């Protein structure tokens, strides 16, 4: 996908000293990672489907 997180970014994040960065009170290591929101709803897909339907109907009329 387009929004792929680069390997370099992963490795850079790993350079962080996780033990030192542990949050208070038993928190897991602070080692952020990008997690892009994925595209699931594509209006264009539905519109494409509608286009196919319209095309089908127009051909039948013709």
């Amino acid at each position, binding site marked *: 996908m387009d929004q792929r*997180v680069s*390997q370099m970014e992963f490795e850079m994040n790993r350079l962080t000293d996780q033990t030192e960065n542990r949050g208070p009170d038993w928190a*897991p290591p*602070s080692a*952020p*990672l990008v*997690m*892009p929101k994925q595209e699931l709803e594509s209006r264009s897909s539905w519109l494409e489907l509608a286009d196919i339907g319209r095309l089908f109907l127009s051909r039948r009329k013709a």
Partner: protein
Amino acid sequence: MKTNRAPDGITRLSRLIALGFSLVAAVTASALMAEASAHDGFGTWDAVRAALIFATTAWLAWGASLALIGVPGRQKSRAYPELSNPQPRTVIVMPICNEDPLSTFARIAAIDRSVAGAGVRADVAVLSDTRDDKAAAEERLAFERLLLETGGEGRTFYRRREQNVGRKAGNIEDFVRTSGSAYDLAVILDADSLMEGEAIRKMVARMQAEPDLGLLQTLPRIIGAHSFFGRALQFAASFHGPVFTRGLARMQGATGPFWGHNAIVRVRAFAESCGLPELSGPPPFGGHILSHDYVEAALLARGGWRVEVDQTIDGSFEEGPENVLSFARRDRRWCQGNLQHARLLFSPGFAGWSRFVFLQNIFAYVVSVLWAAFLVASFIATITAPPPDYFPEPHQLFPQFPNTSTREITMLAFGVVGLLIIPKLTILLGAISSGRVTSFGGAVRTGFSVLAEVLLTTLLAPLMLLYHTRAVLQVLSGQDGGWPANQRGEGMLTLADGWRAARWIVLIGAASLAAVRWIAPDLTIWLLPVGLPMLFAPFLIAWTSRPLTHALFRVPDESAPAPVVLRYREICARWSRSWETETEAAAAPEGAGVLA
């Protein structure tokens, strides 16, 4: 990494066989139905029920084909790669929400010890979404016990979210966003999960050896069941489950399933592929994605990662519902989550198979509505059929009796029942020939267990049909059932409980039988297998929730429990002795400060 892998030869062949078999079965059933209807003229309602029997039979045949594809072939574990050093950085993640803290943390302690014994280095992260402060305080108390038990300070973590946005999926996403870079792999568990360290070692080793493997799902076996219903479910999962899952694995190939727990995921793949957006519009179809696991599996496949199920990894366990009502409640949640997948059928980039899986998830619940519609259509078709004409010719001397459709209907009924029973009998025969029945109590006992399980599911099928139909109609009418926390350990139900939960089913059963008896008495005998269980629904619900000894539905995990299960029980029993005293002390005003 390329997007969307092409399925291999075995996967293509399995899909082709399953689709072909389902299509042939559906066409045959539909033709028999049409032939049976043709005797008195083929009307609109006959066409409707022929179409409905096509769809419902196709679904049954699809389930049967899963088992039949899974029967032949390898029964033994595959050869697993060795785990090599440096080991991948691994974390065992357990998202929890309003669970019993003692048993939950005792499970983690048992898993942690087992993992250490297997030579796997893994951190543990308990991710709490518990809303109640008192329950959260108990979690922290249990966490302290966990640290003492395992000596896990510095590698065992606990955090509680302020807001439980996105529920379980959001909980894991939050962990990945804040701590994901620290780990290569994450073993995702549920609060009732138990896993042997050796199983986790195999999973980690496979992920290490196969860098394009994004997610590996194991087949959890149900353990700890006590009731008739729970033990039947436990037996079915243990005896039939591996064969159905092998069929599924063959059919799905690298576009496999994720069931939300007892699985290992590559953190990088998960992060780059599985950030779930909120769907536009209000629930139940909009908002957060409820059945997120299937969507995450599809997203990983969309990103070019392999997703596989490996049913040969032994030592993966979970608990199951103990009665019909908790089973139906869980199904209500899953129904809403699965119907929401309708929004994703045409999402961009998904593999065709992923879309087909979404369609299956939807159909798993919609099929009950179709069965109910079939019964109604059959009733209407019968009462709207023209009366028999004994003298069709003008000067006919002897009456001509109309052909009955008993033969076709009987064949159809046998066909439908066969699709339900033949796969289970095939699995039984396979287990007898391979000797697998020994661990289930021998051939005779296993045979009785299979028979009892088939009878039980047959008796409960009309109840589940109505529960599913109601769930689908509720979701379609916009009722959001939410995603309430599991009520684990819910036990025996009284007849009054059964009556309160199923009086509407009794009413529908009584009304249907009375109407058919009055208007179309010929149909009564055909409706009895559906109507009688409805009439006795409260009794069935209460009776199946009663404890059952080990005489029936014996499973290997009872006669020889896995070490991690024994360890969990031992820790649980030990912790329980002083648990109440400690939690009461902690809840007292002077103790409250310690836990705040």
